[in-house]
């Protein structure tokens, strides 16, 4: 009897596992945006995806930024690049804010060391940085500097956990952003995956943010 019960339990476990494996109806590899409460999550935002290789064989994109408005939660057409309709522009690992050399707005940013949830308000003594394209950026480029690390041997780029981007938007409001993943589908490829997959699937940004529209510093 016990054995039968056990067998039944095992069978049940197997069938429920099978259920989990069924393909989900949502395409995990397509651009998507979803808001739950105060937090909006953006998935698979292309950020100058790879189109080929340069003369020395390095993978390159077309040099095309993806512009995004934190206020409206919209991916803004490139025709509006020189407008105040966007807050952040993404291309590869570069994130630009709408101010100074990057745009006509009043944007700014700095990196907060701590979790997204733990940042409850923007401290009043915060220093927001601005872009000085192409020399420096408010959100510093480079491995281990602002929001990501790049590992040469595995050729993988990983957002650093516990780094929150504090953004002053184009209109001077505040938002906090956490980059979640750099690869299509939101899953970093295995270290042993071939370079072709690592190249093909990179530069698809996943991030979540909270935008405070009432002008206060509280999230």
């Amino acid at each position, binding site marked *: 009897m016990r054995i039968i019960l056990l067998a039944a339990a095992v069978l049940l476990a197997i069938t429920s596992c099978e259920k989990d494996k069924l393909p989900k109806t949502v395409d995990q590899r397509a651009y998507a945006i979803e808001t739950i409460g105060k937090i909006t999550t953006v998935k698979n935002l292309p950020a100058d995806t790879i189109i080929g*290789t340069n003369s020395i*064989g*390095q*993978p390159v994109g077309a040099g095309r930024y993806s512009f995004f408005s934190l206020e409206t939660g919209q991916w803004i057409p490139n025709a509006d690049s020189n407008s105040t309709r966007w807050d952040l522009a993404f291309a590869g690992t570069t994130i630009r804010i709408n101010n100074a050399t990057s745009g006509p707005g009043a944007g700014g940013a700095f990196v907060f*060391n701590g*979790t*997204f*949830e733990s940042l409850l308000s923007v401290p009043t003594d915060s220093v927001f940085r601005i872009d000085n394209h192409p020399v420096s950026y408010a959100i510093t480029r480079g491995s*281990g500097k602002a929001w*990501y*690390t790049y*590992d*040469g*041997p*595995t050729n*993988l780029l*990983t*957002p*650093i*956990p*516990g*780094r*929150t981007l504090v953004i002053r938007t184009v209109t001077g409001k505040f938002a906090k952003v*956490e980059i*979640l*993943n750099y690869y299509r589908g*939101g899953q*970093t490829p*295995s*270290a*042993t995956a*071939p*370079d072709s997959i690592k*190249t093909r699937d990179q530069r698809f940004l*996943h991030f*979540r943010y909270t935008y405070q529209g009432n002008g206060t510093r509280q999230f």
Partner: protein
Amino acid sequence: MRICAVVLSILAATQVMAQSDTLLSMEEVVVTATRQERRLGNVTIPVNLIQRKQIQQAGSLRLRDILQEQPGIQLTSNFGTGIQMQGLNPEHTLILIDGQPLVGRTSGVLDVSRIALAGIKRIEVVKGPSSSLYGSEAMAGVINLITENPTQPLLEASLRYGVADPDQGWGIPFKRNSFQQTEADLQATYFIGKLKVRHSNNLLFADGVSFRPFSQDRIPRPIHRITHQTSIQQNLGNRAELKLLARYNQDRFQQEFSVRNNGVTIDSYGRELNSELNIQPTLFFRISEKIRLHTRGYLTSYSGDQKLRFVQKPDSSYLDRFEQRLFRIEEQVDIKKKNYTVTAGVGFQLEQANSTRYDALANQKQNNVSYVFAQWELNTGEKWISIWGARYDHHTLFAGALTPKWSLRYQAKPNLSFTASVGQGFKAPDFRQLYLNFTNTVAGGYSVFGTQDAIRVINELNRLGQIAELKPDFTKLTSLRPEHSTGINVSMQYNPTPTITSQLSVFRNDIQSLIDVRQVATRTDGSQLFSYLNVNRAFTQGLETSLQWQIHKNWSINSGYQLLLTGDKEEWEQILQGKEYVRESNGSSRVMNKKDYIGLPNRSKHQGQLKVKYEDREARYVFIRLLYRSRWTVANSNGNGVHDVQDEYANGFAQLHIAGGLPINNTISLQAGIDNLLNYQDIFYLPNLAGRTVFITVRAKFEPKQIKKINHH
């Protein structure tokens, strides 16, 4: 009456042990633990003994093969096959041949697959810091290869052929992808008057396997290896003996390979030639029954020569050469009194290196070491032994190092004993850490400078306006100090019955001022400049158990297990302060818990082996070994720079090896076996693990005296 029974049972135990080779006989003599001959059953620190017979019955060719079957030793796969003892890096284990160090490490790794086991009588593995006797590098312990002595005239030859097929799983000879190994071994001992001579020659030809589609150079490479060893012994009267060991090893790798990178194919032709020479004269002199002198000389040289030619760009060939030489002279005195034994010594060592990776190949680098060591052993009654020792190494290039050690043995009962030891180990900075001057023009143009050059070179670049940024670590660049560790080992040996021996040990190593590579500056073109700093503090701890059981007169079991826990102390403090983060499955960050932390990368938490042997009086045997190693971290996949449960692992795995043998007659014996019967392969993280390999060995042994005796019958 009871006492009598105990004595009888001890006698019985000794007899059983003497009969059985599968039980590590406690009567065996080892030398590494104290630098003088000592019964294995009477040492005060953990020692593993691997006998010639075990090496042969396992069908092991190289040091790597037999070490992977030992408890508490894990193999690593970067820069050749390295060994981790008690969780320390390969650069922290000293490898000796007859007590003198082997040189020729790449990035700190001495490739143990380089060392042929022909002509090796036994291997002694001492765990725990042993710098108090052996100086630099003996932080995790010491592996000492003891060569065969020319004891009696002998001629021995063996031929082994092995084949693996990575596609089929079973070796099919001469197929395109079969991986064939042929090893020929010839040993001869003869006497010329009082001069005793032993030659040992070993040849190995092995194919490479190309089954890695995505990247280059992680595959077993086709190798031709020659090892020659000669031992000469001569008694000089009753009191003195002269011994000379000469050993030469040459590895040649040659291969053509193609790399496809982003659609561009690069064909290359590579050749590597490594040569190693050891010459070791020893004079042993007995002044009296109680005082003995050992005078040892040692000369070793290693050279590694790599050439890589790109077929499409013949002018852009890559050349790399490394040479290292070590000369040493050493005097040791042993004084044996009733209640105490003293061993003391003094030595001088000169070490030189040249490399294309230093400023110029022609510029010879040199370090002189003078050292003195002493050890005092006190026998208090029959139950207690305590040994006090210390060594001081004076280096011309950096601060000296004093390494004390204390160990204790308590024989509680005839079948129960305890040992404890606490000691220090150190590793002097090596030439690479002092003099490297290397720019990788292929991978992003980064440069690494040894500390002797870093400040000067970077200041010069800065003056020329080529430095964009000096990192905070630049200001910390000073002369490197030796790495130091303190190790504690506590063991219990218990033999519940005459046929069972068991051991339980716990260990802890605290390592200070570990040398690590850090970025110290950035060039104006964005390329990074690195150098070496004494930065990290780490710990390793764990327990090791072993059990040997003679089940039946022909059957025995031998098993071992190691639990290993490690950590970086700085990382651990950050975690305790809540300053490290990991990600939830949905990608959002959270503060890292203590439970998430894995510690130092590339280490398995669990490792064990189970060996079963059948051996009868006619020397027929079957030897089955099951080896297991749990998963280990290989890449930091969540970007936090700390190794945690979310990182990428290599899978844990089991290997099963089976070998059997039988004598055909008094001269010829046969051995056949299958290595890696389960055919476990991991081309990324275990590139040196060949697939299922079927092998056969024919061995012929001629002992002139024995043959004569047989004829007389």
